[in-house]
């Protein structure tokens, strides 16, 4: 790079544009307002693509979907006050799932801060516990450096959302600008390289183990470590399960694939973890939906835990070998180490174990019976077949999410985009919009329920405005199905306020938005509707009228050991 000592005079908004360009940002999801009008004015003079959402929550989820599909930092821009508060759910979701986002919020001018000015809210205070870090820019001179830091913090270490609150006068003020140098924060130095001694311990455990299981999570996807994970599993013949966030980190078509673990995990995955003598956990945080009762989680196993975030280690589960490091780098190092050691006879050692797992798999596979009324599982099953497993699937939250996780089999990372930690209804449609913007050539499908789709249905207008051919599959049971399922199983069928007896006609609603609306009411209509919807180059809403009281199985009751499953 050539030295450029000549200082440009720029407004704060102009500086923001320079930083965005420098960070390689080509797309922003946002919603204008008074406090960001100067930023929007400057934005219109750049090549950065702006997607105008219909609600600020949608902007954050869309940026989240974009970030996951593209593997880079998502950016959104909203105004002060309500614009900022509307982002909170989206930020909290991204924080739980460690998604790199930079959220830019407008703020009232600095001299009005604290005066309860029009559209003023302390968004830095509000989002402190649900961001990786956040900033209020109080002096123009700090703006450029703050923005660079925000991007650096969002994407490095364990990624997460970072919010930068920019007062209107800071956006307007003109100051000399030079591009800040590389970010160097003395108080923030993530550990990427694993401790080699710990890796030697893992290698030794692997060679001794008779019943090992790998348990991978979102950290493998985020660190782009899937190839190394697959290499490790195949090299050592260790079966693999993943958390919801880890789906796609290991190919579902591989014979070593156990399926998802946890509350709605497969029988063989949960049983394997219950019986294993070595659990290699990579990029996971042992969420309660994964572990069930913690004192009976993997009770016979030595547990290895690899994660970039030290707080994830020993938070809920005590481990034998903790390793702090980047998942991909750690796996790479471990694989290199294992390649130098003799792995003779390893398969023979595992044979009994693999047979046992096969037995579990055959005794209680995921299953459903398609009879008179459309089964939701059949819709996902057919969607998987028709898209050859290559679509990007986003989900809402609840039964739709679990059926998508169980019946769509992911072979590669970045294809399953869901609000895992926060479990945020209304996530799927805007996330699908973001994913479609990131991957224009791909089929992107939002698997939704009739309840959750209504939480951000206004984003249909966004999809249509930008001609995004997002497909929405509504599994319509006129219930908040997952809560209804709990009420059925644990509250003696008292369906307290879970029936959604009135919903709009989704087909006509789609048409009103300018999208294509389709409906299937009988099993034989499922495939034709899916085919027509998938073939269309429009935004499509497909309304599948499914069995009302179908439940997701297996199910581990909350707080029970994961090996104690309710089966179909």
């Amino acid at each position, binding site marked *: 790079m050539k030295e450029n000592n000549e200082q440009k005079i720029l407004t704060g908004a102009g500086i923001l544009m320079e930083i965005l360009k420098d960070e390689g940002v080509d797309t922003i999801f946002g919603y204008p307002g008074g406090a960001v009008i100067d930023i929007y004015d400057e934005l219109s003079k750049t090549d950065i693509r702006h997607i105008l959402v219909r609600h600020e929550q949608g902007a954050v989820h869309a940026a989240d979907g974009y970030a996951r599909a593209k593997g880079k930092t998502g950016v959104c821009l909203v105004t002060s006050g309500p614009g900022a508060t509307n982002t909170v759910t989206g930020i909290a979701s991204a924080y739980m799932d460690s998604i790199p986002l930079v959220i830019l919020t407008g703020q009232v001018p600095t001299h009005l801060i604290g005066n309860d000015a029009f559209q003023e809210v302390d968004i830095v205070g509000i989002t402190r516990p649900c961001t990786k870090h956040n900033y209020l820019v109080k002096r123009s001179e700090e703006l450029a450096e703050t923005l660079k830091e925000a991007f650096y913090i969002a994407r490095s270490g364990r990624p997460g959302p970072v919010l930068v609150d920019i007062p209107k006068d800071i956006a307007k003020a003109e100051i000399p600008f030079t591009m800040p140098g590389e970010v160097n924060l003395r108080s923030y130095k993530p550990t990427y390289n694993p401790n080699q001694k710990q890796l030697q311990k893992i290698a030794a455990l692997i060679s001794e183990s008779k019943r090992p299981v790998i348990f991978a999570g979102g950290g493998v996807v985020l660190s782009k470590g899937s190839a190394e994970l697959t290499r490790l599993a195949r090299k050592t013949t260790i079966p693999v399960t993943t958390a919801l966030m880890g789906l796609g980190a290991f190919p579902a078509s591989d014979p070593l694939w156990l399926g998802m673990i946890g509350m709605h995990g497969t029988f063989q995955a949960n049983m394997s973890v219950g019986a294993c003598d070595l659990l290699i956990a990579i990029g996971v945080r042992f969420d309660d939906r994964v572990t069930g009762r913690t004192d009976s989680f993997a009770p016979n196993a030595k547990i290895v835990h690899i994660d970039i*975030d030290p707080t994830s280690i020993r938070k809920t589960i005590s481990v034998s070998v903790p390793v702090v490091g980047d998942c991909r780098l750690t796996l790479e190092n471990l694989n290199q180490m294992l390649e130098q050691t003799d792995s003779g006879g390893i398969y023979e050692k595992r044979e009994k174990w693999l047979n046992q797992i096969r037995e579990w798999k055959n005794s209680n596979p995921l299953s459903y019976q398609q009879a008179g009324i459309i089964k939701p599982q059949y819709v996902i099953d057919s969607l998987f077949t028709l898209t050859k497993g290559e679509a990007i699937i986003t989900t809402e939250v609840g039964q739709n999410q679990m059926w998508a996780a169980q019946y769509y089999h992911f072979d590669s990372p970045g294809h399953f985009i869901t609000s895992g930690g926060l479990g945020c209804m209304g996530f799927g449609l805007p996330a699908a919009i973001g994913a479609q913007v990131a991957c224009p050539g791909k089929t992107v499908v939002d698997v939704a329920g009739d309840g959750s789709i209504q939480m951000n249905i206004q984003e249909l207008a966004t999809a249509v405005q930008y001609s995004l051919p997002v497909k929405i599959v509504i599994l319509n049971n006129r219930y908040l199905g997952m809560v209804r399922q709990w009420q059925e199983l644990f509250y003696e069928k008292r369906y307290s306020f879970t029936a959604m007896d009135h919903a709009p006609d989704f087909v006509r609603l789609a048409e009103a938005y300018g999208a294509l609306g389709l409906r299937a009411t009988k099993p034989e209509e499922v495939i034709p509707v899916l085919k027509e919807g998938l073939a269309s180059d429009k935004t499509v809403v497909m309304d599948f009228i499914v069995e009302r009281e179908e439940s997701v199985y297996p199910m581990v009751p909350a707080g029970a050991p994961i090996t104690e499953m309710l089966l179909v």
Partner: protein
Amino acid sequence: MAGERHVLTMLVDNKPGVLSRIVGLFSGRGFNIDSLCVAETVDPLISRITVVTKASSPEIEQIEKQLNKLINVIKLRTIAGPNSVQREMALIYVIAKNGQRSEILRIVDIFRGKIIDVGPEHFIIEVTGNEEKITAIINLLKPMGIKKLAKTGTVALFR
């Protein structure tokens, strides 16, 4: 919540909102704060925060990790053992009527405290020391009538 007493000392960026991040972390994650002291260090860009908390051993590990994760926390240590010094300060407004004044003065003397304000019917006593010492003098003065009490939290350093 069962747990031992731990003294955490940390150097943090001296910026607005940093204390709120730390306090928010404790309340949000259900950890407790027994006492808290914050002040600028020799370097005006850095503050030292001392927190006393009660926590079980897995809990204190998690507290330390969570604090270290905060972007503004530069350095964190748990202070314990003979290699450390710990002090608190108390200002005690004690009723001092005739007949009790010399007894109070004796107690203050024993604890190497100072009388920093005298009135016809009261003293204000300044005393510093470790937690046990402060508790002891307060207990001794209680029968005379402590009208007001201001205590700092613990501050601590390694030798």
